[in-house]
């Protein structure tokens, strides 16, 4: 059996609602993935811990607070510390092009602006995950 793609979807920070995160979670579920949904108000520590425990292939962060330049690097750093560097860190929100480029440079994956078609995100994950998978033995 082909291994299922597992994704952690979180909404870090204290701001607002998690509608966007839920829409993404549902789309990935409908694409046949196993989506671990943790809801609102997740700290980078909680996100990294959940990602390690759940052994996900992908973390998708929905960030609308403007804190992307601190949150993404912090999560990436925690993943490194945990030895979980194979996990693809991606996400979306209102993120300026320059910031996206800067984040990509430090190892964050593709980031998606509001209104990106779900198909595009699904395709990206499907293409990216096999490249990062390590065999169990």
């Amino acid at each position, binding site marked *: *059996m082909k291994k*299922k793609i597992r994704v952690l979807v979180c909404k870090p920070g204290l701001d607002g609602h998690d509608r966007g995160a839920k829409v993404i979670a549902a789309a990935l579920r409908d694409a*046949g993935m*196993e*989506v671990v*949904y943790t809801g609102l108000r997740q700290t980078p*520590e909680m996100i990294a811990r*959940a990602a390690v425990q759940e*052994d996900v292939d992908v973390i998708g962060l929905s960030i609308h607070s403007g804190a992307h330049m601190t949150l993404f690097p912090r999560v990436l750093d925690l993943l490194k510390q945990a030895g979980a560097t194979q996990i693809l860190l991606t996400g979306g929100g209102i993120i300026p092009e320059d910031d996206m480029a800067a984040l990509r440079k430090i190892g964050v994956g593709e980031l998606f602006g509001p209104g990106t078609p779900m198909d595009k995100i699904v395709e990206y994950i499907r293409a990216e995950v096999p490249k990062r998978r390590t065999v*169990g033995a």
Partner: protein
Amino acid sequence: MSDTVDELVAGLFRSDARATARLITLVEDEAPEVARIQSAIRDRVGRAYRVGFTGPPGAGKSTLVAALAKHWVNDGESGRVARVSIVAVDPTSPFTGGALLGDRVRMTSLDPSVFIRSMANRGRLGGIAATTDGVCDVLDAYGSDWLLVETVGVGQSEVEIAECADVTVVVLTPGTGDSVQLLKAGLMEVAEIVVVNKADRPGADSLVAEIQSIVGMRPHSDVPMPIVSTVATENKGIDELAKTIEEYRTQQVSRGLLETRRKRNLRAKIQRLVEARLRREIWGGKGASEELDATVECILRKEETPWDASERIVKKWIR
């Protein structure tokens, strides 16, 4: 960065979360390494006490499990902080194969030491996944004192949890069904402790009374079934529930019933594994699907009855 099973098992024995999580994935995916994992960890399996939580969707299972985890982490036996692990199962879509695993939403404020693993049932209909038991073994070897297993939200007949837990806790809420539901076969038959959660809602007392009257009719009960009212969201009744579970375990151990229970579970597990293997062997082989199609045509042409066809197929495997 690829890990060997030996490295992962060494990590597991050091209680390394990443190694543990990777082993769980191998078990969950029924990877070829599972046999080796099982024999590598078997000396460390059997220490954790496995509490199964089941009940209808939305009854408050996750909230309760989180509250209990919090209780036991802070209230470790002999002053030592207890290690609590959680396995939470949610359903896989039969249409897409995808799943939304949402139990963690209720478990966000737990101590970092609590290991939580979400699982999709991957098509298994008994309320847990086919590999939930195996995942529990890994978390047992991880060093868990308490292993809390939450089933999918169940209806009446998904009671497989009873075959992999040391005790089964059934979570009910007021305002869902009446005493006739409670009388039907299934859920209540596997209950060893009943929780009436959402006791802040009207009807909780009468539900407790109804359960009491129904439990009184049970043929095999030599002890009254514990019924605990809780308001999981307000942490009410959690201490009592924890005490009830601890007391149940003490009784089981002192009367030798835990061993009996685990033997019974092991029996069921062997049967499950054999059946799964046979199913793969019979239906997963080359040409099996084509043969099935041909058999359907035969039956439709009235050349064979379904009964005869099944006999013919079985005879190919059993001499």
